[in-house]
């Protein structure tokens, strides 16, 4: 653990120290650093923002501006299983809206929200390029193609069961 000045005594873990050191002095390195923080923690916390600001010499306001500009970065943690429903044109034309609605109804959350148990979050995303499989959804690393609304309860169940057996 390392303490940083400007973090008001909060501390960050070793992974953060590593990421910050990697991008220190790299031209335009803040984007790369934010990518790594997002991938590592699933979101970019305020403490980590302050730490990066301090280490990379980028004002906190600017970092906040960057995070909120790009949809890939998030300020809030996502669900353990993040459901990304593709809303690209090909998926849209093949009925992606109905699929999203089925997820909303089954999970009782809206797009952009996390279920109470923290298990699922739902996002509608830009074209993932799996247009041959339209409509497509991605849950963490798994891609599901040609999804219909009646497949949705089963898909959700797969992950619920996975959790229950753990």
């Amino acid at each position, binding site marked *: 653990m390392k303490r940083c000045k400007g973090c008001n005594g909060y501390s960050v873990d070793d992974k953060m120290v590593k990421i910050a050191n990697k991008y220190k002095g790299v*031209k*335009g*390195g*803040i*984007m*790369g650093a*934010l*990518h790594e923080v997002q991938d590592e923690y699933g979101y970019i916390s305020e403490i980590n923002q302050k730490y990066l600001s301090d280490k990379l010499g*980028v004002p906190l306001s*600017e970092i906040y*501006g*960057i995070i909120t*500009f*790009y*949809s*890939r*970065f998030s300020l809030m943690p996502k669900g353990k299983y993040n459901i990304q429903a593709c*809303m*690209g*044109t*090909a998926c*849209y*034309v*093949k009925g992606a809206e*109905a699929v999203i609605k089925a997820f909303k109804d089954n999970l009782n959350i809206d797009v952009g929200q996390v279920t109470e148990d923290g298990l699922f979050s739902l996002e509608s*995303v*830009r*074209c*993932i*390029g*799996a*247009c*041959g*499989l*339209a409509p*497509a959804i991605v849950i963490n690393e798994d*891609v599901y*193609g040609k999804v219909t609304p009646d497949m949705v309860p089963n898909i959700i169940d797969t992950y619920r069961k996975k959790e229950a057996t753990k």
Partner: protein
Amino acid sequence: MKKTVQDIENIRTQTKLSMKNIRIMVCAGTGCTSSKSQKIINNISKILKEKNAEGISVEKTGCFGFCAKGPIVVIDPMEIFYEQVKPEDANEIVEATLNNKVVERLMAKENDKFVERWHELNFYNKQKRIALKNCGYINPENIDEYIAVDGYKALEKVLLEYSQDDVVKIISDSGLRGRGGAGFPTGKKWLFAKQVEGNIKYVCCNADEGDPGAFMDRSILEGDPHSVLEAMAIAGYTIGAKQGYIYIRAEYPIAVHRLKIAIKQAKDYGLLGKNILGTGFDFDIELRLGAGAFVCGEETALMNSIEGKRGEPNPRPPYPAVKGLFAKPTLLNNVETYANVPKIILNGSKWYSSIGTETSKGTKVFALGGNINNVGLVEVPMGVTLREIVEDIGGGIPGGRKFKAAQIGGPSGGCIPDSLIDTKIDYESLASINSMMGSGGLIVMDDSKCMVNLAKFFLEFTVDESCGKCPPCRIGTKRMLEILTRITEGNGKEGDVELLEELASSIKKASLCGLGQTAPNPILSTIRYFRDEYEAHIKYKKCPAGECKKLMNVHIDPEKCKQCGICKKTCPVNAISGEVRQGPFKINPEICIKCGACIEKCPFKAISK
């Protein structure tokens, strides 16, 4: 280890020989990977090991384009084509290949005959693969295979034989134009960047392919990443740059992975880095990941993003050629544009300019999607007609439905209606009907699609992706979306169409960048060709295609209803009343959510909207 020109030639000769062996090529593009092609590769490779099969190898390769029939496996050099292969089929494929046989049940059939070689499929008949030439033939993660198909030969030729002016002349004479959408002559762009004075210049590659439904650039980077690296090095030599950046979407993990491998391999061989091929020319390439902002496909926004800022566009001039990345002169081209460059250098500008039409030379890659049988990636010479793409290559519309329109160029493009299906696909012909080439997304729509709703869909996208810097785009698109929303919900007013046209024209004129300037295009083109649909929504509160839910009226035809009760069981909100064999069922419009589930389930087609 760094290689000399002679070393590279030796690798070429050796790898060419080894590539003559039997190779089981498995598509490892994003589409086929999602349908378990990696598992197919693992299974085949395991079986090959068990059987000690010498002289046969399994390789991953780039997109064959026929994504509708994926995963695709091709046995080279015989080019035997297997479609919709499953991991369980691995054993059968290996057995057949070892015994010089084929697995008939996995082969494609056309006109009751098996298709023996993959490019004999009707799907490839009218295609010409230049940018996609190596996709499906080489393993993109092996630089030796790229070298074997004359890769890095163009770079060698340029460095050893050509002056900077020679290269500009070849590219100019070839007639190559920007494949990112605008169609600016590439040779001119290179000339400007070369002419500008400056010790430090940059070469950038725009791989932020953001149009929904477009995956041309991704497929090139996944299937043939070295062709882009080679072209960027050639561009670097031509304009006097030592550093290149590829800005790629983080949503393309496979492409990012392959690019990383390719850059490392090229550096190891000394084809990137210091003193390339002993000629004293230095050039290096770095990757920069996008983070999900459509506007970053705009050149000035893209450069801001590489610099680690919010990806907002800047006014032009100054153009990037004068003041671009890190305020230095910068050359920016799209992936597909670069992929054409090595082939033009090797085959000459005359060869390239002999393909295509008078003003649009070469080929264009399209991502064909939507309501069409052969969803996939196609590369056609400029000047083919939309009909040829839809009917001959795309195999027509599924489900016995009719072609209604094609949206070309994504959210910045326009639709082409049935009446103009014989329009030639080239920059000028498309512009003349108020559409545009765009980056290459081509979405086909059948007669069940409502064009007002489609325009709304694209506008939702642009409203979402507008960066907010300039008011015409930020506020104007939002207002247009509100109008479209009320039209699709049955609250449209007389004069709404005219209001949309007026707003569209102001937004086009006053927006800062390409995003805003082209955002009204889908609305203008749908109004132009489907004005009657807008009128039907506004005046008669009807959606002719039956897609707009708020205007939908689901009802059961009492004549056709056989009183089976399936619809009642299907209805998720209990809006249907009636008892089995006790008279026709009825839908309560107050409760009905117009989901359409009953329409699909009714065995007697008694329910309609």
